[in-house]
């Protein structure tokens, strides 16, 4: 997995690419929580080829962190693979899911 963080209009866009699994999710968790401590967070999942329960757990933890800070949190461009796993976890209705970064910024600010 690789990742990048950019800030647009006071929103952190965390882009995750590749496989978010037991090996890589601790990195994802750290990056996500660091962003959640500063700004609203959007996670771009377009390039996620694989995500497991540990990756989903990182997203849930970030959701809770932003909520407790009163900040926005959303998922954007969720890949088909990631969406299937969110559905299995019954979280596809819990997360705010946006088709694009622009929609996400509009929705979470």
């Amino acid at each position, binding site marked *: 997995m690789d990742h990048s963080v950019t800030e647009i209009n006071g929103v952190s866009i965390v882009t995750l690419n590749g*496989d978010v*699994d*037991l*090996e890589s999710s601790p990195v994802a968790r750290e990056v996500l929580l660091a962003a959640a401590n500063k700004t609203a967070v959007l996670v771009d999942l377009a390039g996620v080829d*694989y995500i*497991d*329960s*540990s990756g*989903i*757990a*990182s997203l*849930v*933890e970030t*959701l*809770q962190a932003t909520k407790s800070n009163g900040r926005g949190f959303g998922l954007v461009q969720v890949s088909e*693979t990631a969406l*299937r*796993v969110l559905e*299995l*976890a*019954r*979280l596809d209705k*819990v997360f705010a899911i946006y088709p694009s970064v622009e929609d996400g910024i509009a929705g979470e600010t």
Partner: protein
Amino acid sequence: MILNPAVAIVDKEENGHSVKMTKPVTTTQAKKPEESEISEQLSLLAELGRDFATSLDIDTTLERAIDRISTYVDAEGGALFLLHNENSLLRCEACVGATDITGIELASDHGIVGRCVQLNTGEIVKDVSTDENFDGSVDSQTGYTTKSILCAPLSVNEEKIGAIELINKRGDSGLFDESDLHLLEVLSSSAALAIKNARMAADLVEQEKMRRELELAAEIQRNLLPTTPDSSSPIFGVNVPARTVSGDFFDFFELEDGRIAFCLGDVSGKGMNAALLMAKTASLYRCLGKTSDRPGKLMAHINAEICETSTRGMFVTLVGGIYDPKTKLVRLANAGHEPPLHQLANNKFRQIEAEAPPVGITTLAVPEDGYVEVEVSLEDGPLYIFTDGVTEGKLADGSMFELAGVEKLLTENIDQPLSFRLNSVVNEINRGDGPLHDDITILGLDAVAAGEAILEFEFAAQASELKITRDRLRPWLRNTGVSDAAVKDVVLAVDEACQNIIRHAYGGDSDEKINLKISRQADKLLIYLKDFAAPVDIETIKPRDLKDVKPGGLGIHFISEIMDEVEYLKPDEGIGNLVKMAKIVG
């Protein structure tokens, strides 16, 4: 997206742009329309727009439009011309008045209407007799006298579509004035937008219709292929079309005495004509093949039939044969097809070359007694027949698969069932990461009864091993014929089960091993995961309530959601833990 012309016209009225008006009409030239006139004009515009938006028949709508416009401007007659043949030709699509000129065609720069189209400018010709571009030939044929012409271009954002021409204003003078031109320009610019939208809509409808027809053709083609036999069958085939329809085919069917007739062919070219010839050849083979003992002779009959009726230049490369399960002997004939591949002991391969030209070219080169037949014994090893879509298929790195690549893969998988071997060849090219260059078809015959497909390996109980494990599992699952969606699910469930072993049985990354064994028998996938850690209390393994949104504890839920059976067992060896999972796959 289809613009609604009615809406587009309202937009135009509000914004005043998007439609070209090349000749500004100032209030000094045209009399200012009264408020009631404006409202009348608007309702005419709205009506025209609605007509174009709701009508499926552009011709009738154009006729109604020119009728309404002529009436409104009070002209004796009117005609609507549209550009055709890459804008070289103007054709009258609709007209009203004394003379019916519907259907007449003229060069797109001819006459007053041509000038109007080319300059993209509306104009009044008060006296046509003094205009150098006026063509009086229609008048001289019909006896009608054209005095004055009002003409406005149909164009949208510089794109020329045609023009509207009105002839002879009713009343004493018979002359049009600037306010008529102004009105016609407004009407024609709206009409142009509506015509463009209607054309786009018609194009989309046509495309959708074609797509559906192609889908139906593809369905019929799929039904021409034999149903997938059970895993004990000595024959198995796979066909993946590059486009919706295929020019490749294969078939097999049992004869009354228990022997199996089969064929595989490749029609020259691609597209619908190839698909139709494919359907014809496959049908002929199946129909005649049920009563034929000799594949070479049968193919000669088919050759004669196709030569007699086929389109010039199209041909079929074809292999036909009969397999006798009692003697393990295959008799086959080859009409210009890629040589079938006979796998012998010691990983050697033998190519069975074609003895005759393809089917559908000539009857002269085919011996009277039919195509030459050769005999192959499956005691020596399995037989593979395939199209050039296989050998010329592109690998992930862009290089060609080639015969050597096919042979290598078949050798590697020699212990797997026949269907697995064929899928492994096809999946090497059909990776789902881009369009195929050619149809892929492969047929295999094997005298050895297929066992179950098995994959077994061990890896260290470490997080970094999981990606490697998933990458090993995916192609194996695809090769056993599991659908792409189910492959993803099964890989997730296995990964989650491995994570639980690493985290809960071993208490984190360990040098100890996890043993994975997965097999497929009929429609059932069986997965065993074994570890060598201290026994885990089975009672503690329970999925949690998902209503409570919190991180963690999802793995067990994923496994139970995806798998049809999950059992926690004690390994026979008495040490470690054993998880057995099963899933029914289509």
